[in-house]
């Protein structure tokens, strides 16, 4: 398909949750909390915004006049989420992450950030609005098909999650409400459906590079704006999965084409991404009438905030390969994971052990131990990892004992003396005995018997050399 001829216009918006406390209160960002212990119900009214106009999207919802039931947990919600207490000042850490992201997107930070209230009366925000602030403008990313502009970067609060809904009531859970989100929007310069996916991937990578974003299902969402010649802008919300972006865009193009062929007018709407590239109508497009200032919070002057330099994940992958000899696959795994900080600290202190060993341990050991021993070692702290690497580096714990040692650390039973190496003479003597006692056994069986005897205390490579020598 010739997208240029089609008049294809497409932009994306990425919403990424941050790994900090909530944006306007001290509640932790637990997005899947336990059984609710707070219950209340509210009604919302459509009100005229700053310009005196009632927003189209808001009055669409008001017509339904529904009761909103809210469920929350005291562990993750307080009076602020309940709209019973004014917001606290903006979470500093979230703002720092936002500003770091702005720099990574080459954007210009606003001199004085103003928090706005975006009218939302579908119940997903208890207050009737979502707090959002434009923190930077005029950024860009480089892609395989040229520069794509990032005109807006916003910091906003996450909405509550809908649980059930009928004609008269809607029920929401509040644990997610108020979790900080960075919203990154591109302009309509995306060239084609595959390019949209590439842009989304690149933006996601940059955001993850701040290493303080949430990971997992539902923590990042993509919205896509699409139009073709003769049609109008349609916003498709709620992509969880990058792979589905091209299909959904192609689906929306053909929906608009069909309407145009029938001579119908395409209305500007918000649609929800469904499986199989289809979309369904959600509500009319909200206009600028829905925004007015959040008068409870002072503006923020970002130049007062000092920021750390951040390396992009893609650059880190390259550096790990070049400096520490990691293969691309392993380098990617480390760079993307939370273990990358541990990796860098460990490698800096090590004289003997090398990058691939440390990286492999950090990435594979937890999985291998879970598979083999059915033990979760996620309780092993960064410091415990670093101490273990130091012991191995100093030759006090053999490399081959690392899995055994990690299990012991996780169980709180680690004793470094248990790994005191067996002396070369002692080892040779023992091997000689075993070889003598088992004259018919093949090499592999002998190896197994010896390794079992010195579980974790000897290096397999050394043992194999001694056996080979003795079998000569």
């Amino acid at each position, binding site marked *: 398909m010739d997208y240029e001829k089609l008049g294809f216009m497409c932009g994306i918006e990425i919403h990424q949750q941050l790994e900090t406390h909530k944006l306007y209160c001290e509640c932790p960002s637990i997005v899947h909390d336990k059984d609710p212990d707070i219950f*209340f*119900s*509210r*009604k*919302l*009214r*459509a*009100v*005229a*915004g*700053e*310009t005196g106009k009632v927003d189209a999207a*808001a009055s669409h919802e008001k017509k339904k006049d529904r*009761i909103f039931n809210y469920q929350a947990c005291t562990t993750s919600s307080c*009076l602020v989420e*309940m*709209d*019973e*207490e*004014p917001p606290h000042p903006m979470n500093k850490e979230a703002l720092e992450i936002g500003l770091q992201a702005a720099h990574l997107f080459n954007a*210009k930070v*606003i*001199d*004085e*950030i*103003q928090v*706005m*209230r*975006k*009218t*939302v*009366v579908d119940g997903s925000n*208890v*207050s*009737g*609005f979502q707090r*959002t*602030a*434009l923190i930077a*403008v*005029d950024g860009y990313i480089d892609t395989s098909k040229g520069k794509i502009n990032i005109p*807006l970067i*916003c910091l906003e609060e996450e909405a509550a999650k809908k649980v059930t809904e009928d004609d008269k009531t809607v029920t929401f859970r509040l644990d997610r409400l108020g979790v900080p989100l960075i919203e990154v929007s591109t302009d309509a310069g995306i060239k084609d459906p595959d390019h949209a996916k590439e842009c989304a991937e690149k933006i996601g990578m940059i955001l993850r590079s701040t290493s303080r974003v949430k990971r997992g299902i539902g923590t990042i969402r993509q919205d896509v704006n699409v139009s073709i010649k003769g049609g109008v802008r349609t916003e498709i919300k709620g992509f969880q999965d990058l792979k589905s972006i091209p299909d959904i865009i192609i689906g929306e193009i053909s929906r608009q084409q069909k309407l145009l062929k029938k001579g119908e007018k395409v209305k500007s709407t918000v649609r929800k991404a469904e499986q199989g590239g289809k979309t369904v109508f959600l509500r009319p497009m909200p*206009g*600028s*009438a*829905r*925004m*007015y*200032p959040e008068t409870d919070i*002072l*503006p923020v002057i970002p130049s007062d905030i000092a920021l750390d330099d951040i390396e992009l994940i893609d650059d880190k992958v390259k550096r790990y390969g070049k400096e520490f000899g990691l293969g691309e696959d392993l380098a990617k795994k480390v760079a993307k994971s939370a273990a990358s900080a541990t990796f860098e600290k460990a490698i800096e202190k090590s004289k003997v052990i090398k990058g691939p060993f440390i990286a492999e341990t950090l990435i594979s050991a937890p999985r291998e131990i879970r598979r083999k021993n059915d033990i979760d070692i996620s309780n092993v702290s960064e410091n415990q990892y670093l101490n273990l690497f130091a012991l191995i580096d100093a030759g006090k714990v053999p490399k081959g004992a690392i899995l055994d040692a990690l299990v012991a650390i996780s169980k709180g039973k680690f004793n470094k003396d248990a790994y005191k190496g067996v002396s070369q003479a002692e080892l040779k003597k023992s091997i000689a005995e075993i070889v003598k006692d088992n004259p018919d056994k093949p090499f592999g069986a002998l190896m197994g018997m010896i390794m079992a005897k010195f579980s974790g205390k000897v290096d397999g490579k050394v043992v194999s050399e001694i056996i080979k020598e003795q079998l000569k």
Partner: protein
Amino acid sequence: MKPGDTIKVRTKENEFTGILMPNEETDSVIVKLDNGYNIGISPKSIVKKELLKNKPASDTKKETPLKKDPKKKTITVLHTGGTIASKVDYETGGVTAHFTASDLIQLVPEIKDIANIETDLVANMMSEDMNFSDYQKIAKAIQRHAKAGTDGIIIGHGTDTLTYTAAALAFMFEEIDIPVILVGSQRSSDRGSSDAAMNLICAAQFISGIDTSGVYICMHENTDDDSCVILPATKTRKMHTSRRDAFKPVNCGPVARIDYIDRKLELFNDIYKGNKLTIKPELSDKVGLIKTHTNMSTSLFEFATKNYKAIVIEGTGLGHAPTSIGKENLKKYEILKSFIKKGGIVAITSQCIYGRVHPTVYSNLRRLSNIGCIFCEDMLPETAYIKLSWLLGNYSTKETKELLPKNLRGEINFRLDPGDFY
């Protein structure tokens, strides 16, 4: 360039076009961009500022008189300021004084189905700034509208001192033949979640649904948007800085409940219905309210007894003041003693808020009682302050002393129900 104008601001790095917004807090230029976001631009980064378009003139609509439905009661809504029913002009940042019936009906359309609505802008202030002269202004407005034949009055009021005004009006009207309901709002009416509309609707529903008179307060019963309570004017206190259900009856229960969903009315008490309106509007400003605490300075007692004719002491526990042990505290005792001897009045209430004060349980209480301090039963300290001001404004010192511990407007409850403490 003035707020509301469309301007273009060029900085070293960018160019922003939008509407200039008011900014009284910092020196930056605030611009509302097309996408609705406001941004602040530091004057240091501005290279050029250009006016593109003047603020469009606002279309002043003529107020068309609303048709009255003879089958419905007429309610007059008096506006005094505060969060409730005020309109914010986002372009100038100010709260507009235009408060017409159609403004109110635009804000709360349901209210015209309940009653015929008239409005009157009495004041436009935050309630913490109120003085006794404002109470008198409100009382006069009530009198005026009652004379003109209104069936009930709703007063939109800031929440901070709403209960002070309620108590003052309750005392000022010796007899009253229409209901006067004070209504506040804890969430401003510019947001979808505002409690203003529901509190107003429930107040109107109460006036329309029952034949009664007297001064009451109508606010949310709990955090849900499902019911409001009618609260007694002299026994209600704002007990939370921000919650919708901040207003609680103290040492008694609510008067009535209005179900917001089915609009049903539930009465908990017999209700009073007066047949005339008489007013004693004077209030003395020679009354002080002192909260006692540990390590308290004697000079405060010196100041109060020198400057006031009467003092309400918000004491500790059963009504204690630091007047028994130590040279300084004994000095405070002597100050109070000579103040009362010279005709001063000392009223004792408790900072416990809930419960009754007692003049004889401990010897220290007896010492206060012995010199003539008047123990105000279960009266709220703020109510005692208003009551004393009203008594001294309209009665002699002797009469004031007699009337202070008597129940005049429901301010004293001689039987406390265990269910009224939570």
